[in-house]
Structure formats: C-alpha cells, structure tokens
C-alpha cells in the first residue's frame, strides 16, 4: 500500500476518506433504523405470521432423534401423529386417524387413517408409513432416547434392546392401506396419549431413504427444502441459531381450518433479551419470563402474562445410600422443615403450587393425598429421634444443584431454612449442567436439586420412574410393594378409579419413605401478545397451531 502510490500522503488520505465514508454509512444506517415504527407484531398481524420465542436452537427436526421442548414446538407443526390432543381438555381427538376402536381387553387398538391425509409432497399417508416409521424409531443404531414410549406395544422393548430382531413379532400391523392395528402387552389407558408424542410421529420414508439409511443419524432430510411432513405446516427456512420458519401446508387435510400463514421460531436463549424483544414488539409469544419480571407484569400488563400449572414437579433428590440420609426420619424431617409458600412468594415468584406429593394435582383426574405436612416441631422431633437433637452432630451435608440463578436462590433459601428450623448445616455445591448430570447419574451426591416433566398426561409418567431399576430413580431407594403396585397392579386394573387407587397407595409409600422432597409444582410462564387468539392454557403447555390466529379484537 504505502509504497505503491507516488505521493505518500495520498494513501493516507485514502484511509481517512475510507473511514469518513464508513462513518457516513453507519450514521445513515442509524437514521434509517430510527423512526421506523413498524415491528414484527404489527407486520405479523397483517400477514398472519406468528413470532415465537422458542428458547433454544433445535438440535434436529427428526422426531425419532430429538428430545427437547424447542424441537417439540417446531415438530408438532410439521408432523402429526395418529391422534391429537384437545388443547382445552387434553383428551385425545382424531389426528391422522379419524377414528379408532379399542378391543374389550383394551390391548388391541385399530386405527382408521384418513383417506385425505397427505404428505406435503402429495403422497397419501398410509398405515405402512406408520409401520415403517415405528420400525425406524426402534432401530438401536438411531439412538432414539424416547424409544421407551413404544414399550407398551408387544415386543417393542425386546426389539429396541436387540433381544429379538424380527420386527414382525412387534405388535404393529398394517391391515390395509388405511387401517393400522396395534397390540399392547398390557392394557395401557394412556396409550392414546403417547401417540401424540413426537417420538411416535410418522416420517416420510422416500425422503429419508433419499438422504441416507433409515437408521442413520443426522442426514440432511430434515433441512428446509428436503423436509416432507404430514403436519399443518411445512419447513420453509432453517438458519442455524437464527430462525426456523414454517409455512402453512396446502396439502394438509385440515388446511382450510389453518389460519396462521407462517410461524417464525427464534432461538431465544437469553430470557432477559427475550422479554425485551417482546416489549419491543419483536415477539408474539415468549418461552418464559424472568422471575423478577412476573410481579412487574402482574402490575403493568397482566393480560400479556400467562401463568398456568405445568405437568412437572421441582424436587430434591436424596441419595439414600449416604449413611445418615438412609434414615427416613431425617429425610422426612428435612421435607417438613421447608416453608414452601414462602419460597414461592419470595424466590420463584411464579405463583407455583407448593407440592406435598410427587405427581402434580389433577393429572388427568388423579390427585394424591398430601404425603406430609410442614411442621417444624414434628421435624425437630423426628431429627431428635434419629439422634440429632437440635441438629447436634448432624453430619455436614452437601446440596448439589446445576449452575443457574434460580436454582441457586432456591438452594440458598432452603439452606437457610434448614439452618434456622433444624440447625443443620448444609453446604451448597453448584456444578455445570453436564458435570451435575454426571454426579447425579453416578450417585455422586447427597442431596440434589431435580425436576421432572411428564411425557404424557398420566400419573404413570411420574410414578414409574421410582421403580427399583428405574433409570431415573437415582436415589438408591426401592420398595417391593411399590414396584408391584406400579408395574403389575395398576396396569391390570380394569377401571380408572381402581387404577388410580393403586397409584395413590404407591405414592403414599413413596412419600412416606421420602427419597425425594417435593418442593413445588411447575408453572409454565409466558408472555403472550393480546393479538394471539385460540391459544388456551393447559398443563402440558401444548399449543395447537391449527387453532391459533392473530387478530386485534
């Protein structure tokens, strides 16, 4: 540079000019940016485009691979299972199957698939599609973490774990193009619920095979342009970490009912930013809301705030293999010495419900009795019985949580309560997510924060995890009667009431042993713009896009 120009200053002035130009450009940009009162919400109203804060970048859009909620939000727009849920009641309603019959022994389901069900490329959706998709979903090589959703089906587990390799033995049969027959091992009242879980959605065979083997992870078939689905929307755009956009599918059987033209999902990891985006009119719906903002919105803008109970429980998991924690009196004492309401009012601030049982109340009509009451005196007594009168000599105990401001506040609060009420010293220990997971799965903890979200609306999704060999048990606690109730008695039950009775009994056992300390029932908290209509709240936080539309009144 400097050398090439005959008059040395010129290149220098070049630099000056360049900079000044740049400055102009930038300032112009600024000016242009200012003054445009338009924002996503106002433009969205006209074009029926919904701007959705989706929490995170989807890992994948392959229903048989993904595990997360952000993925769920997108996939339910792109694909549809045999049945859907009624957004109000969450009871199953026809999806791909316009109707179904259940045999008297409640073990055989026959689904009648809509004649006008179409893939987005025009192909009809047939029972064969389902058989193949489910076969694929059970391929070990695919690494489908939700394979267990299929386990109620005859031999599904055996096939998934490789015990048998003949899929024909699995209880799925295509009677004819539009009739699918599914045979269950045991009566499974919540089976229909499962069918609306994305892990049981059908996928388009030709497309997948076009981009790789059926059991191959991460082929390009899920990319915009490649993706072929059977849902109300089709994948239009997928920019990594920036945007996923889906657009109304013309081939969808119910297309004329779908009023939204498009939905734009943003990976809003930073909740504060998300909230500001909402305020700046860049989002219609946010994935969540910082706890400290809730009070503000309650005051200033209540109609935008949507808080509803959620099918999940926040609890502390106790490692019963630790000497002093093996004593259930101590576990109960700890549980009873927490003032849940105060925590909710001062820490979580979401108006969550204090939890005195593990299964959230009114899970498809099931509510467990309170397993215990908050009673500091009783707690002290129990502790004394256990040999630690007034916390004397209580071994230093470690409370593990994954690094997160919310968990931290909660832990600190509870730590203080235990100190104040029982005079026991708890040390806090926070670890990064992955480290925390490692510690918990390897049982390398004493007390650890945990949460559980139901996969489907049925007590079972909460209670079967405490089976002796339950992969998510991790407390080292087990009880033979409990196992018997959950894995034999309850499935065998003829009527719901009887089944629920077994569950109540089991949960009573669980709460009495107290290997886990329920803290509160989760809430789902969203900011929803008044324009958004047809989006009722439900405990699954499930939104049915085909019913949503944007309108000012």
């Amino acid at each position, binding site marked *: 540079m400097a050398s090439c120009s005959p008059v040395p200053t010129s290149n220098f002035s070049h630099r000056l000019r360049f*900079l000044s130009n740049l400055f102009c450009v930038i300032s112009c940009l600024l000016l242009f940016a200012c003054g445009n009162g338009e924002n996503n919400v106002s433009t969205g109203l006209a074009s029926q485009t919904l701007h959705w804060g989706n929490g995170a970048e989807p890992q994948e859009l392959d229903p048989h691979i993904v595990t997360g909620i952000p993925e769920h939000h997108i996939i339910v727009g792109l694909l549809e299972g045999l049945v859907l849920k009624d957004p109000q009641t969450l009871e199953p309603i026809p999806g791909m199957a316009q109707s179904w019959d259940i045999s008297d022994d409640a073990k055989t389901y026959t689904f009648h698939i809509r004649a006008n069900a179409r893939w987005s490329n025009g192909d009809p959706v047939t029972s064969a599609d389902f058989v193949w998709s489910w076969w694929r979903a059970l391929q070990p090589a695919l690494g489908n973490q939700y394979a267990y959703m299929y386990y109620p089906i005859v031999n599904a587990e055996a096939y998934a774990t490789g015990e048998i390799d003949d899929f024909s033995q699995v209880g799925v049969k295509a009677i004819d193009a539009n009739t699918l027959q599914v045979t269950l091992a045991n009566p499974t009242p919540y089976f229909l619920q499962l069918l609306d879980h994305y892990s049981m959605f059908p996928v388009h065979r030709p497309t997948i095979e076009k981009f790789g083997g059926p059991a191959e992870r991460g082929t390009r078939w*899920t990319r915009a342009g490649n993706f072929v689905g059977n849902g109300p929307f089709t994948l239009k755009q997928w920019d*990594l*970490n920036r945007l996923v956009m889906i657009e109304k599918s013309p081939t969808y059987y119910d297309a004329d009912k779908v009023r939204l033209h498009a939905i734009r999902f943003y990976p809003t990891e930073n909740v504060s930013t998300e909230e500001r985006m909402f*305020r700046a009119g860049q989002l219609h719906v946010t994935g969540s809301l910082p706890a400290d903002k809730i009070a503000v919105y309650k005051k200033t803008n209540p109609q935008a705030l949507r808080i509803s109970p959620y099918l999940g429980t926040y609890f502390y998991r106790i490692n019963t293999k630790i000497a002093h924690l093996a004593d259930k009196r101590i576990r109960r004492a700890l549980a009873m010495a927490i003032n849940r309401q105060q925590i909710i009012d001062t820490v979580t601030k979401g108006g969550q419900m204090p939890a005195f049982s593990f299964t959230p109340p009114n899970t498809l009509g099931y509510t467990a009795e309170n397993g215990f009451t908050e009673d500091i005196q009783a707690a002290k007594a129990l502790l004394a019985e256990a040999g630690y009168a007034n916390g004397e000599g209580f071994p230093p105990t470690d409370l593990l949580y994954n690094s997160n401001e919310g968990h931290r506040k909660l832990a600190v609060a509870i730590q203080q309560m235990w100190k104040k009420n029982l005079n026991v010293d708890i040390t806090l220990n926070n670890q990064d997510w992955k*480290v925390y997971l490692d510690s918990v799965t390897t049982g390398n903890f004493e007390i650890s924060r945990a949460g559980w979200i139901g996969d489907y609306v049925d007590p079972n999704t909460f209670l079967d995890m405490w089976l002796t060999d339950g992969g998510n048990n991790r407390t080292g606690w087990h009880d033979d009667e409990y196992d018997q109730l959950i894995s034999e008695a309850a499935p065998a039950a003829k009527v719901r009431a009887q089944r629920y009775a077994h569950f109540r009994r089991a949960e009573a056992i669980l709460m009495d042993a107290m290997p886990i300390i329920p803290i509160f029932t989760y809430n789902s908290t969203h900011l929803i713009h008044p324009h958004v209509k047809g989006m009722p709240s439900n405990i699954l936080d499930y939104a049915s896009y085909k019913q949503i539309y944007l309108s000012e009144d």
Partner: protein
Amino acid sequence: MARFIFMRLLQAIPVLLVVITVTFFLVRLAPGGPFSAEKAVPPEVLKALEARYHLDQPVVNQYLSYLGDLARGDFGPSFKYPGRSVNEMIAAGLPATTELGLYAMCFALLIGASAGVIAALKPNSAQDYIPMSTAMLGICLPSFLLGPLFMLVFGVWLEWLPVSGWGDIPGDKILPALTLASGYTAYIARLSRGGMLEVMSQDYIRTARAKGLPEWKVVLKHGLRGGMIPVIAFIGPAFAGLLSGSFVVETIFQIPGLGRFYVQAAFNRDYTMIMGTTVLFATLIIFFNLLADIVAVWLNPRLRDLYRGKGA
C-alpha cells in the same frame, strides 16, 4: 518479505498442533459426556451413539483419526446438533462474527483514534481528560452491562433500534457493534494518545511548524502517520480478539455467531465443535498477528526497505 511470511506460516504449524492436542485431551478430561441428559439415556442407546461417533475407541485412535480428518479439512460432525457438521456450523457462524467484529473495529477506530488525537494535542488539560475518560468508560463498563443498557435505552425506551436479531430488521447490527467496540475504543484512544504525544515531541514536527504550516496540517500530515503506528500494530491482534471475544455480545444480542456456538459447545461437551472453534480461532489470531506485522512494515519506509533487503 515472502520469505518472512513463509517462515511465520511455518511457525504456525507447531502452534496449531499444540492447540489441537491440548484442547483435544482437555475436553475429554471434562466430567459428563456429550450425550448425558436429565432423562436417563438407556444404555443401549448410549452405546449406539458412542459407536456412531467413535467414542468407543481408545482416545489415542480418536486423536489420530481426528488429526487425519483435520488434515483433510474435515472438522467432523457436531455432537449436539446431529444434523450438522462442524464445518457447516463454522460456515454459518463465522460471517456473522466477522461482520460484527468489522463494524466494531470501525467504530472503535473512528471514536478511539479521534479521541486519542484530540487528547494528545493538549496533554493533562480538560481537552485531554474529557475524551480520555469518556473513552475509558468503555473499559470500565463491561459489555454484558453495556449491551442490556443499550437494548433498554435505544430498543425498548426510545424504540430507535431493534433489541436483538441479526439482519432481520434494519439497524439491528448497530447496538451489538457499539457494545463490542466499547472496550477497544478505549485501548485505541490510549494508544493513539501515547503515539501522538511521542511523535509530536519529535524534531521533525518542529521542522513542520517552522515551515509555517497550520497546526491541523502539522498534526494530520506529519503527526498522524507516526502516531498511528502503535494503533496499527494493535489492530491485528485486536481484531482476532474481537472475533474470539465476541461471545458475550453474541449471547446478549442472540447473534448467530461463532463465539456463541463456542460457549454453548463448551457447556454441551460438543467435543468436535469445541475443537473446531478453538483451532479456527487460533488460526485467526496467528493470521491477524502476521497481518499486523506486515502492515506495520509497509507503513514504515525504513523497515520496508529492510525487508526488501535493499539498503538500510
């Protein structure tokens, strides 16, 4: 010159090798694997996954095969995002990061350099302290404070600029760029002040004055060139720093940039992604340092001749 560059590039190879090796084994030391999740992953599934990504093989083999792939320019598949290769993700993230860095650097240069020059003209006076302290605010307010502040003021309250996004809405790149620039502005201001003070005390400035040139001409024509040398030297490394340091801003403004990927990858134990980004950043840093040296040489006639090998 060519030889000089060649030598430097040659040196880069061992550097990169060190980076790769250290990172590779470091990430595998970390507790918690890429596939652990809140819901227990069934053992058979886990096995399938590890087989899929060759994590079942001995580490040394993994290392060697990784080097092999790298030599072919293949960073491997991302663990967290099964559908994506690391190359693809870098390709997706680098442009945003670079663009952001570029804007930030321009802001920093514009504001910083002018502040520094102005300050240097009247050292230890108000004309010195005011611009310098304002620039210094940049250092003193960490970007994770400045960013949200800007958002709130310009985005939510004044509604001038969008709060977040990248290339979706006009002007959505200004706030992040400003935020990222803030820190560097101060450094550039300090550097140019120092440089100008140095130069303005030189004899040849007196010569220029003795020619009866107006002061502004003395400063801009005779002073600036020498005075900016330290700044030029700083820009290269600084730009590399901007790229590898932009993750905070990217996280706050949710910009689809590399820095954000990196931090996520680190938390997710996305081994290949961590490796990929680290190697890339190392390369960038090396490259920009080299660039800085070359520019510095071209700016200084004497050095230029030295490197040309002609009389010095």
